[in-house]
C-alpha cells in the first residue's frame, strides 16, 4: 500500500522540469547521487531510531542495583559505540568520495564542447548568444536555447543586474549568474526534447516568471534552425504588417528591442528578429499567439508587474498593426 502510494507520488516527478527524471549525463549523475544519499541516510536513520527505541522497549537487566556495573556488558557496549563511530566515519568518507567522483564526471562533460553559448541574466529574461569565430555567425536570441542533442554544449553564465541562477533540472545542476563574473556550465541532452528551466535565485518581483527552455534537436535540425535564425527579419507581408513595422521604428519599441535587418538595434531587451518562431513570450510567461502578443504589448504591467517593458501608448489599430508585424517575424 505504502509502496503503491510512493510510486504514485514519484510519478509526479517525471516531466520536462525534474531533477528526478534526468535526460542528460550531468543530471543522471546527480539523480543517482540523490537516490543513493537518500537511501543510505534512510537506512542509517532507521537504525538509529531502532537503537533509540530498543532501550525503551527492552527491560533493564541491571535489576535493583543500577549503579553496579557489569564489566563484560560495559565492554560490549563500548565496542558497539566504537564500531558505530567507525562505520559513520567510513560512510561519510564514502559519500564524500562519491560526490567527488560525480563532480569529476560533471567537469568532464564539456571538455570537447563544440558549441559555446553565452547566457546573460536580466530582470526578468534570459539573453542567449551563440558564440562563433565568424562575427556574422554570432546569433543573439532570448529565453529559448536550442542545442544539438547528444553533444556537449558549454554555457557561459553572467548577469547584468542582480544574481540569477540557471537551472535546467532535467539536464544539470543549478549555477549562479553573477554580474561581472563568468561561470561555466557544461550540459548535454541525451535525447531530443524540450526541457524547462527556471531562475533559481530570487531576483526580484518577477523571479517566478523567469523561465527558459532548452530545446534539444538532432544535429541537422539544429543547424537548419541556426541558419534560419541568422537571417535578418523578413519584410512585412501584409499592408497592416507594413504599418506595424513603421510604427515599431517610430514608437518606443525601437529604443530597447532589436530586429535584424531593420534600423532597430536596441540591445537592452529581448531580440525580436525571429520572435514568432519562439514558443513563449516574456520568458515563459505566455504561450506565443497573436492574442498573447497583443495582451503583452497592451498591458505588460498587468501580466508581469514591475517588468521593464513599459506601457506604450498605442491605439487599437496601431496595436493590431504592430502585432501583425511581430507575428510575421518567424
Amino acid at each position, binding site marked *: 500500500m505504502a509502496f503503491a502510494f510512493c510510486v504514485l507520488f514519484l510519478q509526479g516527478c517525471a516531466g520536462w522540469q525534474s531533477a528526478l527524471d534526468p535526460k542528460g549525463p550531468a543530471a543522471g549523475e546527480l539523480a543517482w547521487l540523490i537516490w543513493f544519499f537518500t537511501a543510505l541516510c534512510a537506512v542509517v536513520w532507521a537504525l538509529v531510531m531502532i537503537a533509540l527505541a530498543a532501550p525503551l522497549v527492552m527491560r533493564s537487566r541491571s535489576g535493583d542495583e543500577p549503579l553496579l556495573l557489569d564489566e563484560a556488558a560495559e565492554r560490549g557496549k563500548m565496542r558497539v559505540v566504537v564500531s558505530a563511530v567507525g562505520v559513520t566515519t567510513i560512510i561519510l568518507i564514502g559519500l564524500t568520495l562519491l560526490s567527488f567522483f560525480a563532480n569529476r564526471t560533471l567537469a568532464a562533460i564539456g571538455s570537447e564542447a563544440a558549441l559555446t553559448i553565452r547566457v546573460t541574466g536580466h530582470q526578468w529574461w534570459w539573453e542567449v548568444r551563440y558564440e562563433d569565430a565568424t562575427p556574422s555567425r554570432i546569433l543573439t536570441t532570448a529565453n529559448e536555447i536550442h542545442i544539438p542533442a547528444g553533444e556537449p554544449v558549454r554555457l557561459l553564465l553572467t548577469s547584468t543586474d542582480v544574481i540569477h541562477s540557471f537551472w535546467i533540472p532535467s539536464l544539470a545542476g543549478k549555477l549562479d549568474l553573477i554580474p561581472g563574473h563568468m561561470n561555466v556550465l557544461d550540459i548535454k541532452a541525451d535525447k531530443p526534447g524540450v526541457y524547462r528551466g527556471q531562475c533559481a535565485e530570487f531576483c526580484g518581483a518577477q523571479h517566478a516568471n523567469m523561465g527558459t527552455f532548452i530545446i534539444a534537436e538532432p544535429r541537422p535540425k539544429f543547424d537548419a534552425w541556426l541558419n534560419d535564425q541568422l537571417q535578418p527579419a523578413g519584410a512585412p507581408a501584409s499592408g497592416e504588417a507594413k504599418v506595424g513595422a513603421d510604427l515599431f521604428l517610430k514608437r518606443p519599441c525601437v*529604443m530597447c528591442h532589436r530586429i535584424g535587418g531593420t534600423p532597430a538595434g536596441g540591445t537592452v531587451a529581448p531580440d525580436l528578429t525571429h520572435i514568432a518562431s519562439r514558443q513563449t513570450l516574456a520568458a515563459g510567461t505566455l504561450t506565443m499567439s497573436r492574442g498573447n502578443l497583443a495582451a503583452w504589448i497592451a498591458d505588460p504591467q498587468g501580466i508581469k508587474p514591475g517588468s521593464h517593458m513599459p506601457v506604450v501608448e498605442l*491605439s487599437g489599430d496601431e496595436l493590431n498593426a504592430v502585432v501583425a508585424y511581430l507575428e510575421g517575424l518567424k
Partner: protein
Amino acid sequence: MRRALAMLLPLTLALVACQREERDTRPQSALGSGEQPTPVTTLEPGGQRPSPTDNKAASFEANAFHMSEGKRLFGWFNCSGCHANGGGGMGPALMDEKWIYGSSMESIHATIRDGRPNGMPSFGQKIPDDQIWELAAFVRALGGNAPSSAAPQRNDDMMVHPSENRLPDAATLGKSP
C-alpha cells in the same frame, strides 16, 4: 489586553516606516497622457499666465523607485552618449547649477519630450510619458536636487577610489607580502 495593545502600537508604527514610496508601474490612462501642454516659454500673448504645475511631476519627483528607474533608462537610452553620466560632453553637463531651460521637473520633461535647439533631440514619440518623467526625476537628482535618502547611488565604476572592501591593504600597499 492592554499589553497586547501596547505591543501592537510599536509594531504598527514600525510597519508604517516600511512605506517609502508607491510603485505605480501601470498608468491608468496611458493613451494621450503625453499630450499634456507644458509651457516651454514664459512669453505668452496677452501677458504671462500662471504656469500650470503638472500633477505628475509631484508624484515622480523625489521618489526613490522612479529615480532609480530613471537612472537605468539614462544608461539604456544612451543619454551618456552626449551628457556623459551627467558630466557633460557634446551636450551640456547635468550635474552643475546651470539650467539653460530651468531646473523644474516640467522643464526637464519638456526638454526630453520636445527637444531643445542646438542638439537635444525630441523623444516624445520614442519614450513613454511616465519614463520621461522618471528620466526627469533622475536628471534632477544628478545635480543634487533630490533628498539623499532617495537619490540613486553613483555606480561603483565611477567612484574615485575602489569601494572600501576592495581597497588595497594599507600595510602592504597592495603588494603580496
